């Protein structure tokens, strides 16, 4: 993950079953044999230079990782705004000024947070930790982490003192949050990287991770951290209900470059009791990767999410194995079978392995099949890994596989991607893409569907859902599951905070509906109660408030 004194790539290549394939044949030959997507390929316009965002994530070794973005509505107009980590540069907040269906346009705004605390930022995640229905931010830093309480109109106050929260001095690289059963306020988890002060650093000196459980009935307080030890340099963590028990566990994807005897981790987090890691005796199998990002979605709609794990070399895609049950988290890797290994650049002639960072499952062509986006980029100048390493867009196909279209869609850019966000910035029903690059301007891509610079042309039908629990804790229904029935098929997704690479987003949940003109939506709210069925028409933004008889439509400005 960092400048190598030994070559982990060489070790990996010897061990990898894919080694022969990686070394065989020229890159162009690979391109020639790539499958073609039958699913429609969205076209992206690179609007980096025109959108009004002038921002770089940069800095020395500590900022080779991180580089996240938080995509959320900071001013109450329901349009997604953008917070960008800057590393040694200042973090930035941009208001979304995009016209509906028009070019992406943003405007730099001030946060109200002092300058010195807006530097050394690696990433950020939006959430409403104080239940005031104004989104807040958890800001990950090299040094004191910040909990920023949203004040509205994109202004924030540092709430660490008010919350009794010690932001620590660690090198924090990952975050997740969840409302545990019966709790008014969220439990916060911070994943840390290398303890640079430990003897022998950086090798084998991964810092413990921290879990903050709330106390205080009327206002959140986080006076004490529970140490999740051992830590293995977590670059992505995610509260996830892996066994549909209603009790989220904490998944951690760890960077093998620095840990010793470490592995990927899954922590049980039973309500009111100390967390504990799943072990081999629980069925947890050792997986060692350069874990950088987690993306989760229930591909086969069996109630058990699948997990994409980015890494150097091949991406993993884990599915519960036949031997697994609700108590045995036994996973098998289906990345090769489904075509998402994304182990080396899909275009160009650089045959060296890829380096994957942020990952997210979304439906970028609105065909009702999940697609996988992966931000890619060399750590800095690691010689055993691809220097030209474009981001991936793996389009889901009807046969269950994924097909790479990063180049044909216009996303293949020569930059070192890190964090990312996939959101409909101009509210036209097509998800756009923002990628934070290391030592380079942020990339911003507008999805124009089947169109071009002159005209956006639609893809499949879509639906955007904003979940709310007004007057209740957990206003944004974190932990809810949304089930969308189109014809006789159902697609589902969970409302989660965490995962990706140092990047989170909160806002409308986007669903592609394919050729369906209508959908039936049910919500399993975080406490497990199911809503009745909401009947909605395609190509609209809708707001579903808990216990509401009907959805409310929402009109973009």
């Amino acid at each position, binding site marked *: 993950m960092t400048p190598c004194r030994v070559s982990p790539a060489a070790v990996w290549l010897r061990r990898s079953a894919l080694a022969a394939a990686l070394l065989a044949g020229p890159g162009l030959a690979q391109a020639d044999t790539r499958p073609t997507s*039958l*699913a*429609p390929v969205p076209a992206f316009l690179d609007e980096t230079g025109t959108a009004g965002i002038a921002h770089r994530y940069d800095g020395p070794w500590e900022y080779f990782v991180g580089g996240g973005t938080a995509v959320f509505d900071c001013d*109450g*107009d*329901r349009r997604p705004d953008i917070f960008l980590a800057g590393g040694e540069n200042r973090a930035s907040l941009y208001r979304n000024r995009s016209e509906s269906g028009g070019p992406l346009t943003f405007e730099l705004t001030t946060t109200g947070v002092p300058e010195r605390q807006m530097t050394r930022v690696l990433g950020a995640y939006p959430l409403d930790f104080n239940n005031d229905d104004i989104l807040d931010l958890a800001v990950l830093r090299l040094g004191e982490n910040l909990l920023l309480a949203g004040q509205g109109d994109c202004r924030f106050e540092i709430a660490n003192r008010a919350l009794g929260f010690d932001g620590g001095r660690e090198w924090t690289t990952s975050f997740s949050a969840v409302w545990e059963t019966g709790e008014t306020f969220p439990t916060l988890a911070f994943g840390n990287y290398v303890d640079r002060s430990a003897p022998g650093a950086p090798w084998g000196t991964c810092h413990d991770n921290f879990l903050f459980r709330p106390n205080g009935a009327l206002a959140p307080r986080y006076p004490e951290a529970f140490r999740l030890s051992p830590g293995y340099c977590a670059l992505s963590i995610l509260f996830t209900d892996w066994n549909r028990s209603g009790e989220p566990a904490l998944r951690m994807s760890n960077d093998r470059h620095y840990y010793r005897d470490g592995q990927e981790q899954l922590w049980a987090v039973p309500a009111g009791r100390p967390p504990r890691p799943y072990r081999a005796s629980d069925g947890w199998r050792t997986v060692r990767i350069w874990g950088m990002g987690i993306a989760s979605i229930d591909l086969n709609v069996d109630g058990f999410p699948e997990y994409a794990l980015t890494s150097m070399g091949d991406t993993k895609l884990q599915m519960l194995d036949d031997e697994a049950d609700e108590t045995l988290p036994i996973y098998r890797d289906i990345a090769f079978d489904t075509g998402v290994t994304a182990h080396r650049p899909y275009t160009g002639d650089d045959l060296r392995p890829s380096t994957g960072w942020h990952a997210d499952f979304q439906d970028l062509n*609105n*065909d009702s099949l999940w697609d996988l986006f992966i931000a890619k980029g060399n750590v800095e100048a690691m010689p055993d890994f691809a220097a030209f390493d474009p981001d991936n867009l793996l389009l889901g*196909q*009807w*046969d269950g596989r994924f097909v790479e279209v990063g180049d044909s869609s216009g996303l293949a850019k020569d930059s070192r991607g890190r964090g990312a966000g996939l959101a409909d910035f101009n509210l036209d029903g097509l998800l756009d893409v923002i990628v934070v690059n290391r030592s380079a301007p942020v990339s911003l891509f507008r999805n124009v*569907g*089947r*169109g071009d610079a002159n*005209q*956006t*042309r*639609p*893809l*499949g*039908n879509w639906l955007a859902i904003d979940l709310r629990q007004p007057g209740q804790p957990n206003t944004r229904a974190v932990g809810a599951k949304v089930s969308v029935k*189109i*014809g*006789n*098929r159902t697609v589902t997704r969970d409302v989660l905070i965490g995962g990706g690479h140092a990047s989170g987003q909160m806002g409308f949940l986007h669903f592609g*509906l*394919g*050729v*369906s*003109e*209508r959908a039936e939506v049910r919500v399993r709210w975080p406490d497990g109660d199911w809503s009745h069925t909401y*009947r909605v*028409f*395609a*190509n*609209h933004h809708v*707001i579903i408030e808990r216990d509401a*008889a*009907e959805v*409310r*439509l*929402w*009109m*973009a*400005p």
Partner: protein
Amino acid sequence: MKHALFLTGIVLFASAAMADDAPPWSENILDRPLNFEKLASQDTAAMELLISHGERLFIGKFTTADGAGRPAATQAIVPTKRRRPSPLTFQRLAGLDANSCASCHHDPVAGAAGDFTTNVFVSEGFESADFETIDPQFSNERGTTALQGAGLIELLAREMTKELRDQRRDVAHLARSTGTAQTIDLSAKGISFGRLTAHPDGSLDVHEIEGIDPDLTLRPFSQKGVFTSLRQFTVNALNHHHGIQASERFGAVWTGTDDFDEDGLAAEITEGDVSALVVWQATLATPARKQIMPEIWARAAEKGEQQFGAIGCAQCHVPALPLDSLIFEDPGPYETAGTLRPGDVTDGIHMDLATLDWVKALDRDEQGRVLVPLFGDLKRHKIADAAQDRLGNELLSQRFVPRDEFLTAELWGVGSTAPYGHRGDLTTLDEVIRAHGGAATAARKAYETLPEIERESIIAFLRSLEIPQ
């Protein structure tokens, strides 16, 4: 047809070779697929040929070589696989249930209605034909509707959709700009569609909207009023009734295969051929007043029309709605994915219906707008209640529409389209009038209290609204 197309010097076929290969005695009708892009670039003369081609497709009986049959697909409008092949290619519940469009739409002329024997079943819940049932918990039965005048109906619906959506846009803007909730009465062409409240945050309260879906797309087709356009209806019906799967919905882009129904034939009907069917339906002349009838009938009809208005029938069965534009565009502006959209093509087909003789014969208002004499309001109403539930004899809502709500039947041609009611199980006009409940209760009671001679005059009037033969 083929000869005529080439005489004009226009090559509209997707594959000229296919046309040449088809022998004159061919039983197939989809052997001369039209190319949509070439169609869209042609002038009015080509449209006449397109209409002729559409008639051939509407009347022709689809063969297995055309793609008839869908062993692996259900009748659902969203591509859905069957769990197992049906042992029967044809069966009346799950389909296939017809050989041609005109199998049902034929009485008294092609494109018109059909009697009880042409009823179809509306059910999308089953992935196995074995479980199809006429049990009203799972299936609704529908009579065949007449398509005469459908082009003008679709144009009215498009204009009304735009009008309503403009009102929605304006009230949302007003609520945002004033910072206070705003409520408006929705109406289009004088027809009320309830109320809409917009909030300053851009959210819309739609629960007071009436007679139309909350997305404010006026869907004027089917007895339930759930299909937006002739094109959408045609694509649905081709799959449901014939197993002919249009690429724009069942093709590889949306299903991963060009042979979704696994009958061995890929890309069964082109966008151009669907357009031909649409254009033919859209140019079917409107029904008209009976021209030749005995004096006694004419006098009774005149009296009956007055009574029809006086007792309240015309509140929903509005005699005419004004239409601003006679340009029929294919694809239409409010299609969604799965039916060809303007965004899917470089150019669409633009057809000026004003050039048609039967359109020229229609009355116009003082603003020069064509008055479409549909005797309808293109709005859904509750038509049954506990006291009179004859027209609410269903247990299953269809596409989100409650079981007791139906689109106001357009009566312009009702004299030619017996039997009546959405199930086609009412044999006379008097029976169907007496079956009205719900929002039509007052009008029905008024009818029932009329002297017999005046009721008869209303029947005489309705019987004078016919589909010319």
